[in-house]
């Protein structure tokens, strides 16, 4: 379970998140939606430890991890797929994966999930397409064997046929039951389909929250239109 309690954070003098609280219960999937600049990515950066909080607490499975560095949070089961299909561009696809583990069985496991990567193992990650890099980013994060997975706009800027593949994988992950998922996504329909509950974030504050599912589409759109 991931819990952000009364988090305030920002950059320099700018406050981006103001007293935000979000809970992702164990085994559940939660979506955070909002317009550009609402503070979604900042919220995730706080959760993984890339941005320190000015006030508030981050709890992971009940443990206060607010002061822990990101790598220590990863060791406690927090996985993060950042925005922008990030990878280590000068390393090959295989080296990106081997950064986490050299276990052939584990790597084979994630390659089963993303078979397209199998033929790209010796190619430098910087030369992959956006969709391939996103698959690599998710595969790499899955290798860290997270109990809590955070995904930041996983389908942003990716060609439609690959988006479907990635959506299928994410849907599968959210339905696994042993994995909690926090999903930031602008594609509201997909976000609500994949998750059990949602938060709407606008100008650094939570403005709406509720149960997910297709029925929530209108209320989320209404909340985001304000």
């Amino acid at each position, binding site marked *: 379970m991931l819990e952000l309690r009364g988090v305030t954070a920002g950059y320099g003098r700018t406050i981006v998140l103001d007293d935000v609280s979000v809970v992702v219960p164990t085994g559940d999937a939660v979506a955070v939606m909002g317009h550009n600049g609402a503070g979604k990515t900042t919220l995730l950066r706080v959760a*993984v*430890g*890339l941005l320190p909080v000015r006030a508030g607490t981050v709890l992971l499975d009940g443990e206060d991890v607010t002061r822990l*560095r*990101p*790598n220590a949070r*990863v*060791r406690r089961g927090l996985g*993060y797929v*950042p925005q*922008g*299909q*990030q*990878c*280590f*561009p*000068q*390393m090959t696809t295989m*080296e990106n994966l*081997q*950064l*986490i583990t*050299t276990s052939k069985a584990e790597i084979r496991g994630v390659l089963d999930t993303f078979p397209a990567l199998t033929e790209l193992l010796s190619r*430098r990650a*910087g*030369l*992959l*397409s*956006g969709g391939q*890099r996103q698959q690599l980013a998710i595969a*790499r*994060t899955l290798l*860290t064997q997270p109990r809590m997975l955070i995904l930041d706009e996983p389908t942003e800027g990716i060609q439609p046929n690959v988006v479907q593949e990635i959506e299928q994988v994410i849907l599968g992950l959210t339905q696994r039951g042993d994995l909690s998922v926090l999903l930031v996504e602008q594609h509201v329909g997909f976000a609500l389909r994949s998750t059990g509950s949602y938060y709407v974030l606008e100008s650094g504050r939570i403005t709406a929250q509720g149960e997910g599912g297709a029925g929530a589409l209108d209320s989320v759109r209404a909340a985001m239109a304000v």
Partner: protein
Amino acid sequence: MDVIVSQLFTGASTGAVLLLVALGLALTFGQMGVINMAHGEFLMAGAYTAYLTQQAVSNSDVSLLIALPLGFLVAGMLGLLLEMTVISRMYHRPLDTLLVTFGVGLILQQVARDVFGAQPKAVASPTWLHGQLDLLGYGYPVTRLFIVTIAVGCLAGTAAVLKYTALGRRIRATVQNRDLAETVGVSTRGTDRVTFFLGSGLAGVAGVALTLVTATVSNLGTSYIVPAFLVVVAGGIGQIKGSVIAAFALGIVGAFLTYYTSGSLATVLTFVLVVAFLQIRPQGLFTVRTRSLA
């Protein structure tokens, strides 16, 4: 023809020394982006380690072999200490790092002068390195050949560590995207320290090797630090293969220029050539090709 062969050998030998000095810098500056002006003093620390080892083990045939790993450890520990106490507080502040490490270099030089005196210290080369080897009709000093061997060995070792080990992957990941490396579980602070240890240690090995061709003095490093930076920059930041080519190119060009002009003019002309080259190709010999910057 004789002139060409002899200058090629002389240049290759100077290039090997430059490579050895620049290799550590290729890690700390090329990979980590830290402008460590005290790197030359790690060279000096390695050279004095060779001197002290010879004082303790009078048999010069074995003292050099003991001094090589010892020099690596001593300079590596100094580098680690510098990283933990000073440089770690100055990441992303290159000008501050440059100034502070320049000051640290001066302090280290003064400490060496106080401890060992201002007079150069000679380190006797082992008997198995005496003499010359006949290569293409040119008598090549065995000491120089040994330095080339050490340079190639260190290069191969560094490349193998970076390419094939988990530590190498962590170093490259940290260099390429620090935040991302943290979020996949890499302790970037720990990786910084190990990288700095390795880079400084290589300077120590270079210092030990230099005692074979030059006397050990407290300002030994100052003559090598600028050419070493030139090698890394001209080779392309973060590209070790670029440093290799740049080191040998500078060595060979310098040798020919020295032959046809004079030592000091050759240095000036070499600098001018490097500056002109960087005007045409500011990114150095090699760059990284990617489809995006992510």
